């Protein structure tokens, strides 16, 4: 009997010891651990600012998108080589989430809890970033300049730490819609939409001006690579101008299907789905080398909100080319790297605006206060304010002509909903001589 109860006694004794050994026993009364300002300086030292981001570096979404953080890094290195911001070097860590929200939540945990970053910067993708939206806002981590055009990032009451960056799909679609109604007033318009927020936001924007001209709106489910029924329906409805609000792979798929159906409308694609280099390589891959970009994309209409690499005379492209060459990294300067560098340029502006002693709270307030007035490679201003966290406010319409991007219109500026569309009156910005923004502290 004694032997049988032996282990029980031992366990009970161990448990009792363990409990009594546990330090606290009870809470001390109020007063300790109150929120002092030091906690908001996570990731900031006298010589460095640590920030992080999540991007698809491997997997299906990696081609193209994986170049964005390399552009950002190159620009931060350039700023660091010139002495950093207020004597602080920017340390940018980017992690791979393979465009999988489960992994996004893991790598963002790693960045926030282990690397102790000051802010998350340029996190890419709508489903991926959605997974960490609540978390970052609950933890009070600045969630700056999300690389996605969803309207989710512009909810300052619910998500006070999160800021969008690129023009949202609705604004872009409004400007495309107005352009079509003015320049193709007799066109029968077909919409080719991704069946999620991208397509929904865009359809809302497009219908503001084109409701009467639209003869068909066809939706595809992302992941289903057969878009023949949708394209055939557009053809059957007699649409002679098709606007696609879709990701790059579906630009390539829709082009290949319409080639097979001998369907030749005027094609328009939103900016997100229209990078000629990426779509060209996708076309070559999907058609197993039978099609190259040259013929199919000719005459395609799209939009721009950043300078593009096929315009080497642009002073911003010249700056970014210099930055990219100085970084010594492999590969060419691409539009994705320009995108990354432009985001990095925005972050440097924000850090300057946050003043000599940036805090998490301070940088959010600084963006709200002065973000609207920052100058940079973006063609239309940001819409940041205390009650708006929306990014770039407009786009210009372009056409692919002879493999180059040709400007069809000046830059138009607008906002969500019924806001009017106006022509941007600002002269095109030029980079400062140093290539580094010169934003005054907002405080």
């Amino acid at each position, binding site marked *: 009997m004694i032997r049988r109860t032996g282990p029980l006694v031992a366990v009970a004794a161990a448990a009792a010891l363990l409990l009594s050994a546990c330090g606290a026993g009870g809470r001390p009364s109020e007063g300790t651990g109150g929120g002092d300002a030091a906690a908001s300086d996570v990731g900031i030292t006298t010589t460095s600012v640590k920030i992080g981001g999540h991007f698809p570096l*491997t997997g299906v979404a990696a081609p193209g998108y994986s170049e964005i953080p390399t552009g950002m890094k190159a620009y931060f290195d350039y700023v660091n080589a010139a002495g950093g911001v207020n004597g602080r070097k920017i340390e940018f860590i980017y992690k791979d989430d393979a465009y999988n929200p489960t992994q996004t939540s893991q790598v963002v945990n790693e960045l926030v809890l282990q690397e102790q970053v000051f802010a998350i910067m340029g996190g890419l993708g709508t489903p991926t970033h959605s*997974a960490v939206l609540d978390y970052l806002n609950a933890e009070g981590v600045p969630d700056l300049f999300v690389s996605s055009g*969803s309207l989710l990032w512009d909810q300052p009451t619910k998500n006070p730490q999160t800021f969008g960056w690129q023009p949202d799909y609705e604004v872009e679609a409004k400007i495309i819609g107005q352009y079509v109604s003015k320049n193709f007033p007799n066109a029968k318009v077909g919409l080719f939409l991704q069946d*999620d927020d991208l397509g929904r936001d865009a359809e809302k924007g497009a219908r503001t001006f084109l409701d009467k001209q639209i003869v068909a709106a066809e939706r595809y489910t*992302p992941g289903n690579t057969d878009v023949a029924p949708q394209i055939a329906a557009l053809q059957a409805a007699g649409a002679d101008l098709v606007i696609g609000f879709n990701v790059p792979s579906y630009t390539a798929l829709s082009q290949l299907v319409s080639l097979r159906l001998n369907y030749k409308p005027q094609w328009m694609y939103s900016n997100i789905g229209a990078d000629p280099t990426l779509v060209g390589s996708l076309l070559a891959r999907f058609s197993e080398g039978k099609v190259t970009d040259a013929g199919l994309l000719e005459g395609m209409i799209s939009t721009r909100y950043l300078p593009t690499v096929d315009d080497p005379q642009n002073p911003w492209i010249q700056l970014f080319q210099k930055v990219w060459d100085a970084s010594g990294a492999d590969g060419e300067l691409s539009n994705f790297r320009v995108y990354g560098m432009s985001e990095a340029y925005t972050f440097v502006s924000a850090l300057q605006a946050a003043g000599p002693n940036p805090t998490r709270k301070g940088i959010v307030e600084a963006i709200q206060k002065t973000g609207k007035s920052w100058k940079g490679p973006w063609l239309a201003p940001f819409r940041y304010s205390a009650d708006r966290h929306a990014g770039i406010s407009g786009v210009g319409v372009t056409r692919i002509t002879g493999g180059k991007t040709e400007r069809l219109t000046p830059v138009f500026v607008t906002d969500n909903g019924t806001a009017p569309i106006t022509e941007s009156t600002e002269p095109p910005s030029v980079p400062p001589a140093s290539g580094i923004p010169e934003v005054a502290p907002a405080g």
Partner: protein
Amino acid sequence: MAAPTKDTEVGVPPAAAGRFAAFTRRMPSSTLGKHALTLLVAFVVVVLVLELTGPFRNSQFATMAYYGIAAAGLTVLTGVNGQISLGHGALMAVGAYTTGLMLAAEIPLLVTMLGAMAVTAAVGAVVGVAAARLHGPYLAGATLALAVGLPGLAIYFDHWLGGEQGMRIPSPQMPAWFSDAIYFLSATEASSAKYLAYIGWVTLLVVLFLLANLMAGRTGRVWRAVRDDEVAAELAGIPLGKVRVLAFVVSAACAGIAGAVLGIVVRLAAPSGFTIVLSLGLLTAVVVGGLGSLVGALLGSALLVFLPPFVTNVGTDIGLDNTQAAQLAPFVYGAVLVLVMLLAPSGAVGVLKKLLKKLWIGRSTRRTG
């Protein structure tokens, strides 16, 4: 009183038996008791580990918990019953989406997890009925179709399930008694990462406890019989179909609970989180850990969680840029998988068992010699 010989394991050399018997004598004699004692010890270890590690490690443990639950369920199906499933990622999706819908309706967490389990078990029963008729590559194909097709439902019913960008899942609030208890234990404020890690590991331990008992009893014996020789099992009066469906249902129920834990840890259920990569990851975890062993499933899921960040960090330390370091992780993972298959086809647990045996024999011969 001398150690009853029936307690000593067959195969242990007599010289070691005396030592071994001293240990077994102190263990409870019933399987249930043994498992309960292990559960208790494991719980104490989990508390110690979670209290001694920081919030980031806590969050990694939370991740490991849901992989562990799903892998344990899969190892029962594949290792013990001999059915392969490439569709467990999809079953986890069922659990995660059910959790999202139920938590959004403000149903308590425990009820939600049981609900997720029940719904997934029901789906598993349907799949299991089909699976029971299929063998080898055909079964792999059928479950593969599940992995590819099921997440598509979330995109098709996007108004209801959130489509491509996913359905946000409200993370359960930490109850006051929990943070008080943590404060009592370690004098630190409990973080939400810690709370989620506790939910994950308590669930994992309960699941492992139940599975271990199931495997040790008649059900486990019947499953193994069906795996080893169908004809002999059928001759012995075992209804093959029923047994197979039951294994699938149990395994699916685990995947459902894993999905529920995943949902509250990730705070989102999105189709891109439940691709075929997840299903294959679970299968590799089970195989690398050691097919049919619950400990192996745990080891395998630890590898899934801890290896990629470790490799990435080693990569950045030796001077690779972040992109190259990220690309190193899948490469090393693949290399580890190939090496395990070549050098230790019985998985990590198989190697451990072999080492222990050698150690034992070495010692006993030294003592006798």
